[in-house]
């Protein structure tokens, strides 16, 4: 991985003492390459490299740890700091129903994640109402209803309804009336360049007044992560990110891009297709995964 490539650079260096310009530039080039291979956005990687330059320059080659190990540690520490402290907790309203809205691109894992969240909350003894607000995708409402059954949660019956905004409004009303602890709104996948659908999402948010808006993003997302985070953040305001399909071998650089551009924490991670495959986000694990 990165450590071996850096060892290659430092092996040829005869000098002692702190790393010189040439070694630092060589190391930064390797680090940038590792980040780009991992799908970290080009501009995000550029900013990151500029910021850690100072940390690398100070590294002492005569120190107890060999320089390549020190450099990797410094980069990991910087990534962990960027991706923020321990995974932030799911929001909980001070009283009444807590509404969570899941948004994101087509196929990112929103519906499955809604089921996973429901199961997680059910295991804590909380009452959950799932709101299937995707009227576009064939059998999407049925998909969420089936997951609700598996999770031991209830599902608002939106079958036959045509207006996603009306679905959200009615579901949240029912959640309040029947004293649910959480209402989880599943929305249709959409592209941020589709203005009509982004307007629809804004209206759905106004109808839901959610405490938590999670961007559900695929761990294998490429450079697009920046556009995605920016546009969804601007359209509806995000409170967190959920990274799915982390059980694959995508390095997951999108995590860095998303955190950098949205400023919100990655709260949860999907690690499988079953409803119990949901974990808290661990920045240290993510950092070493990204560096490869």
């Amino acid at each position, binding site marked *: 991985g990165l450590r071996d490539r850096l060892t290659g650079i430092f092996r040829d260096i005869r000098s002692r003492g702190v790393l010189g310009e040439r070694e630092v530039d060589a190391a930064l080039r390797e680090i940038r*390459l590792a980040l*780009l*291979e*991992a*799908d970290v*956005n*080009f*501009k995000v990687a550029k900013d990151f490299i500029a910021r850690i330059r100072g940390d690398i320059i100070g590294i002492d080659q005569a120190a107890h740890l060999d320089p390549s190990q020190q450099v990797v540690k410094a980069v990991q520490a910087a990534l962990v700091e960027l991706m923020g402290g321990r995974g932030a907790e799911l929001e909980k309203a001070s009283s009444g129903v807590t509404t969570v809205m899941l948004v994101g*691109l*087509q*196929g*990112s*894992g929103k519906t499955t994640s809604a*089921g996973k969240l429901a199961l997680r909350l059910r295991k804590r003894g909380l009452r959950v109402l799932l709101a299937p607000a995707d009227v*576009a*995708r*064939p*059998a*999407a409402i*049925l*998909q969420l209803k*089936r*997951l609700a059954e*598996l999770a031991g949660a209830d599902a608002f019956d939106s079958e036959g309804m045509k207006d996603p905004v009306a679905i959200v409004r009615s579901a949240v009303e029912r959640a309040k009336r029947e004293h649910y602890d959480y209402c989880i709104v599943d929305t249709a996948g959409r*592209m*941020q*360049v589709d203005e009509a659908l982004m307007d629809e999402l804004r209206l759905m948010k106004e109808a839901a007044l959610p405490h938590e808006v999670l961007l559900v993003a*695929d761990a*294998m*997302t*490429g*450079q*697009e992560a920046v*556009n*995605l985070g920016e546009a969804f953040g601007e359209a509806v305001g995000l409170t967190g990110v959920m990274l799915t*399909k982390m*059980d*694959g*071998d*995508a*390095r997951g*650089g*999108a995590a860095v891009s998303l955190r950098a551009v949205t400023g919100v924490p990655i709260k949860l991670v999907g690690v499988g*297709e079953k409803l119990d495959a949901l974990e808290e986000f661990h920045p240290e694990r993510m950092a070493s995964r990204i560096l490869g």
Partner: protein
Amino acid sequence: LSGISRIDPESIGDIEEALYMADIGPVTVEAVLEALRRGEGGGESPAVRVRAILLSLMEHPAQSPPVKGQGPPEGEPEVIFLVGVNGAGKTTTAGKLASRLASEGRKVMFAAADTFRAAAGEQVEVWAERNGCHIVRHQEGADPGAVVFDAIASARARGADVLLVDTAGRLHTKKNLMAELIKLCRVAGRQLPGAPHEILLVLDATSGQNALAQVREFGSALGVTGLVVTKLDGSAKGGVLIGAVHESGLPVRWIGVGEGIDDLIPFDAKAFTDALFE
């Protein structure tokens, strides 16, 4: 890219940025810069040269594509498998492909071989209805091999020209799921020698470098015969495809440009490389 008038150390950085931002990836970016340094791509502006080099990488792959088997014998259905990672767009692509093939006068049938995911069968059913096609489906949790078996038998009985087999999404890192897919291919081949005649790997244009791993793993496990790239109607450029095609030699049969039944068009490499930097 079009703002760059000549190639020098200053503009190389801008060229690099444009390439990376299109998801072209380190190995291919390096190949392009190397080709530029060697003076390849024609004598024109950097933008034109870069596009020519990228097109050339696609048209001159590092290895020749796997030889696609003979089509089915006269009177037998062509069996097409749709495979790929979760959420890439397999089921939707099957629905669109059916419409395309029907407009060419072919009689199409569906096999709902995803018996795992919630409402997967119902989702295929809607697409079958939209196309006015027959569908073979078992209940959730059934053996997908049994679906494939029944579907081929049914396709033969009904004189279908094409059988579209929609499989469950799976990550290539899951050995047991890849083994299941290999088994589905064997079930098809034992029943109808030569089947599946086409194995389409569906890739999501928003994915980054992991698409390369997908092409490698699905390719070596199954002998994929073609690629489909979906979701090119967004702002993702799908540049990882350049490296994937150059490395595997696989043809890109279709691209998905929306969620509607008509949103599947034939792949055009020149149009694709032109669109990378828009």
